């Protein structure tokens, strides 16, 4: 094994920013619950509120619209279940019950919707095309006053396709339907207009942009109401209870500021490396298929299917060669699953298993890309031989 590690899995998590770490350490050294009325409590509260104002300013929203959560998953669950439950307060006929969701959502949305479906809530899945873009016509035709919630992510975490969020928001607005979008991968990578008419809520996560794990936010329209997931002190606008983590929130504010102010420069840098990597890979492996939209795409996303290879074999061989990436989809026990995103895009499940996601950050370098392209030929060769002949014969 080589000592040099090339980390190209920034969509999973990325390095803590030094400035965020400093902000965290400074705040964590102080005692004080932001809800307490004494001096220490007030200091903590001030830090939380200043962080909230800073984030609101960076994102172009009102401070009261920033609801801190434990991360992206909680923000997604709060929005999906919160709107669904609000739309169906008594389960009556004629109340808002239907949920419109894309089938390529992150598990934090997808599994929440599936759970609601199991509970008896009707769900309609908005089809996506071969590039992973939702079908706007279908969406518009199925939006009506009985829809509790429409949820479509800003940009897909696996294949990188950016969704027509403004169009979806406009359609939802016209139908009077709450629209939630998971923007965890988009923050810092794309220009985010959170003031779009019709956009009701947006989920954000700290650790994807250099804040610590364990903090995130739901940006929730000030006029929107939802049913809380957890009940208690009602610290966050009465929709989210639990003592707020002042230190992590301070670090989150630092990371959001950097993500937003550096977005244009980082995106250009990442897109340049992304295109080099894509070009290099398709040059080395002419049968490789780049998944997702090549134009409306996250600047740091390279998602490729290598026919005849299994993703987990590729991952293992790359790891041994010092390159860290992802198959894009694995369950908690590590059993490789064909990606639900690729399946929804119409990719054959067998083919879908041979996929890899490389995700870049603004600190990724040309040398990182060079290293991937250097080790890839041997890895592909080996993985093709390791692909189970029994499985192949059954295709």
């Amino acid at each position, binding site marked *: 094994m080589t000592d040099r590690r090339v980390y190209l899995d920034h969509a999973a998590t990325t390095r803590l920013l030094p400035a965020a770490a400093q902000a965290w350490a400074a705040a964590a050294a102080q005692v004080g619950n932001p809800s307490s009325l004494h001096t220490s409590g007030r200091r903590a509260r001030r830090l939380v509120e200043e962080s909230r104002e800073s984030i609101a300013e960076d994102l172009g929203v009102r401070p009261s619209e920033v609801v801190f959560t434990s991360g992206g998953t909680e923000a997604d669950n709060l929005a999906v279940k919160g709107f669904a439950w609000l739309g169906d307060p008594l389960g009556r006929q004629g109340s808002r019950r239907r949920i419109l969701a894309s089938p390529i959502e992150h598990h934090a949305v997808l599994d*929440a919707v599936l*759970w609601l479906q199991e509970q008896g809530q009707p769900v309609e899945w908005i089809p996506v095309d071969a590039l992973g873009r939702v079908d706007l016509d279908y969406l518009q035709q199925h939006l009506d006053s009985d829809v509790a919630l429409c949820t479509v992510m800003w940009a897909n975490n696996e294949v990188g396709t950016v969704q027509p969020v403004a169009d979806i928001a406009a359609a939802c607005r016209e139908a009077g339907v709450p629209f939630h979008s998971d923007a965890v991968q988009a923050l810092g990578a794309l220009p985010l207009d959170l003031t779009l008419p019709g956009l009701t809520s947006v989920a954000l996560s700290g650790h994807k942009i250099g804040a610590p794990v364990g903090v995130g936010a739901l940006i929730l329209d000030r006029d929107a109401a939802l049913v809380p997931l957890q009940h208690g002190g009602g610290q966050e606008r009465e929709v989210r209870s639990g003592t707020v983590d002042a230190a992590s929130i301070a670090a989150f504010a630092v990371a959001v500021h950097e993500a937003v102010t550096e977005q244009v420069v980082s995106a250009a840098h990442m897109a340049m490396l992304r295109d080099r990597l894509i070009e290099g890979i398709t040059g080395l492996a002419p049968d490789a298929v780049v998944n997702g939209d090549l134009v409306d795409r996250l600047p740091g996303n390279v998602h490729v299917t290598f026919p005849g290879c299994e993703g987990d074999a590729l991952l*293992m061989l790359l790891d041994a060669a010092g390159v860290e990436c992802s198959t894009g989809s694995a*369950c908690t026990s*590590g*059993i490789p699953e064909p990606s639900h995103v690729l399946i929804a895009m119409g990719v054959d499940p067998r083919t879908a298993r041979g996929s890899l996601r490389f995700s870049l950050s603004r600190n990724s370098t040309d040398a990182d890309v060079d290293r991937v392209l250097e080790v890839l030929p041997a890895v592909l060769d080996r993985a093709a031989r390791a692909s189970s002949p029994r499985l192949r014969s059954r295709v």
Partner: protein
Amino acid sequence: MRVIAALSGGVDSAVAAARAIDAGHEVVGVHLALARVPGAGTGSRGCCSPADARDARRVADVLDIPYYVWDVSEEFSAEVIDDFVAEYDQGHTPHPCLRCNESIKFSVVLERARALGFDAVCTGHYARLVEGPEGRELHRAFDAAKDQSPVLSVLDADQLAGALFPLGESTKGEVRAEAAARGLRVADKPDSHDICFIPDGDTRGFLQQRLGDRPGDLVDVATGEVVGQHEGTYGFTIGQRRGLDLRVPTEAGDRRYVVDIDAASHRVYIGAHELLAVRRIDAERPRWCGPPPTEDLLGQIQFRAHAAPVDARVVVDGDRVSAHLAEAVHGVALGQALVMYAGSRVVGSATISGRAG
């Protein structure tokens, strides 16, 4: 060597992997997803997160080796579970662990490991590999109580060449103590005994789901009299005494045993213990752990896990094997393995297809 350590999540495979590392091998841990048990997981994922996979991952973390899950559930289902059900369907009593070692661990997994640039698959089986004059030999473990050479008796020379069994010279107690000393918290896990793809242990229920109810008669083999009913021949194995649910005792008041199963007529024959006595065992589909024998083998045979070995002369005729036993044995079930030994060395094994008194 570069070694894939199969980590089950249990203590044996953990210590085996640790010893492989100590021996200087470059070790990568792999947990095999054999059977997919739906349920525990949430929502969109088709898999569960079994506790064993977590334990295996923890072992790899403690040993500081890479860890992966290899999904061989399709192959396992086709090679092991389907065979298991088909054998019971015919009134046989299969041994799925042998099939798994033959067709999965030292076939699919070993082939994949080799293709990925590894030399061997390391497991926590209690058995020894000895370099002999005619190549590598498989031998019984030193710990007779734990000896797992019977379930490995299906491995041929090429498979043995890609195997690593670091526990063959240890006792289970030593391995547990070593696991504790190494800080492997799995040291206290109980041994697994059951069939891994039937976690609730209800083999009959598992087979009932796949083969359906097949009611039939319990027939007294001596009188031809129908003495009871059963739900399916797959619930029985030769030599079984419990669970016959017979209300009518024999005239002499003797215990009665399953002495024969005829899956075609759905009949289970019962009779006295002496009817189980067997002096010759016929078997087919032999697997040789090295060069096939060129003449009759004067050695020992074993027909059940942890049964005492019996002296025998084994006649090999192409794809057929007949073992002539020095003393009678009882409870020989079709479908089980006839494992052949020369002292501690495993010569090979074959699937029992017939028996005679």
